[in-house]
């Protein structure tokens, strides 16, 4: 993609931003998701509301936040509440439209592993663990995942279920009684995966210049292609300009 006038991070941010709707209440992390939300607010979703698991609602950060609890998130926010309240009153009560998730592994049914590679009791690699993602994956109306597209990140089955996608597919997720709709899209540097009616992630859109074989090579299961698989619209000049000049001028995340 070296010849393209944007890099992989920019491509992912722009495509993630386009998934957000005006008035969405978004449970947002730092880094790429934060950029996607801020980009959406400055383009098609001016009434987007950002809330953070640290208990901040309606943040209007004056600078690029460098952690989920950056003080710039608080100054000028609409409300601040305790951690218990953000997970109960906001998330579980059904007040969150969108959650962003990440992890070391995302599998064929959108399940996420952010806990361990290998055996739980004797881990090969000990990862950070759930944090808020177990409940965000279950209780936000819809979830998005943004991640580089690499085979080790997309195994057929995760080593550990840190948070639930569609589990084994079919009605497995629904039967558990979780409220949210689960992962609705995985945005990568190659394209966008979305669940089909059985909950299996299939290639729903491919970025300009990418071919299906490249996506398949970087995916750990036999990837299906949606019937109406799209080619994404390249990042516009305006989107790139906002990202580079307003949101992350020091190029920390992009």
């Amino acid at each position: 993609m070296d010849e393209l006038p944007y890099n992989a991070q920019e491509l992912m941010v722009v495509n993630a931003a386009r998934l957000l709707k005006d008035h969405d209440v978004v449970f947002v992390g730092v880094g790429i998701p934060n950029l996607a939300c801020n980009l959406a607010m400055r383009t098609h979703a001016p009434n987007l509301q950002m809330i953070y698991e640290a208990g901040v609602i309606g943040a209007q950060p004056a600078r690029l936040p460098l952690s989920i609890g950056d003080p710039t998130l608080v100054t000028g926010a609409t409300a601040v509440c305790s951690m218990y309240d953000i997970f109960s009153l906001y998330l579980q009560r059904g007040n969150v439209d969108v959650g962003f998730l990440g992890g070391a592994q995302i599998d064929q049914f959108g399940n996420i592993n952010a806990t361990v590679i290998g055996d739980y009791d004797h881990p090969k690699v000990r990862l950070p663990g759930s944090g808020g993602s177990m409940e965000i994956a279950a209780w936000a109306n819809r979830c998005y995942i943004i991640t580089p597209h690499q085979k080790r990140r997309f195994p057929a089955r995760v080593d550990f279920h840190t948070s639930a996608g569609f589990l084994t597919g079919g009605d497995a997720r629904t039967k558990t009684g979780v409220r949210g709709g689960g992962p609705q899209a995985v945005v990568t540097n190659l394209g966008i995966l979305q669940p089909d009616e059985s909950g299996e992630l299939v290639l729903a859109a491919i970025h300009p210049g990418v071919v299906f074989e490249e996506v398949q090579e970087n995916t750990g299961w036999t990837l299906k292609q949606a019937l109406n698989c799209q080619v994404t619209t390249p990042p516009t000049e305006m989107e790139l300009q906002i990202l580079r000049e307003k949101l992350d001028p020091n190029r920390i995340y992009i």
Partner: protein
Amino acid sequence: MSKITSLPEAIRQHVYTGDLVYASGFTHLIPFAAGHEIIRQGLKDLTLARATPDLIYDQMVAAGCARKLIFSYIGNPGVGSLHRIRAALESGQLEWEEYSHFGMISRLQAGASGLPFMPMNPSGAADLAERNPCYQQVTDPYSGRAVVVVPPLTPDIAIIHAQRADALGNAQIWGILGEQQLAAFASQRVILTVEEIVDETIIRADPNRTIIPGMVVDAVCHVPFCAHPSYTQGYYDRDNEFYLAWDKLSKTPQGAQEYLDAWVFGLPDRAAYWEKLGSETHRRLEAGEHFSQPVNYGAY
């Protein structure tokens, strides 16, 4: 009766070998100075509980204070791994007990409320509950469905940093509240560190801002800049450069030890630590001003 004492004295009086310690604060108000003093006093065999262990517990684990970790997210926030904790877990040198954030905080909520357990909603992700026997189930009498519950967490000692308190320990916090209040009420003993000790009239002029009442506080310690490299809203900024630096220097046990020698064992207290950081860092972390407006409580 004033509860004001020095931080070393408070740690000596209220923290014991083998204690379950909850040094609270979600990214904000993390009581680093108290963690350093625990390291200096050579406390061992501690069970360290925190939703987000952060650098403070990475340092305490590196210093050999901990037998066990109770947590829900072990990352260097916004940076990456906590190398010393990760190495200790991967090598089997540290016991652990793991939750999701909501599971962890629900344990504190039960502990703080004196309730026998707290119910949680289904998450669909069963692996963690299968590995941690503290997760149990009851049958919802209204729906007949299984409901996951967690038991109370009641630490021996909570350490809480706040912007200000009076001499009795009535503490006010603004900015991110995290689990500060729950940790204080859940614990058997509470050490409070504050940026400022104020007259009780300041506290009483805005009672809705009081998060922790003196009645649950055992010691009040005046420790300016206690939270560095974390931050205190309105007092100083998060030192993100240090979070990045720790990521590098803590990659080896030696690197961590050198840091501890220079910045913990080599210094008597937080005042010396702050001094050693130097004026350039002080300036870089200045908070600036953005004031709330007074509200009228009325004179009745």
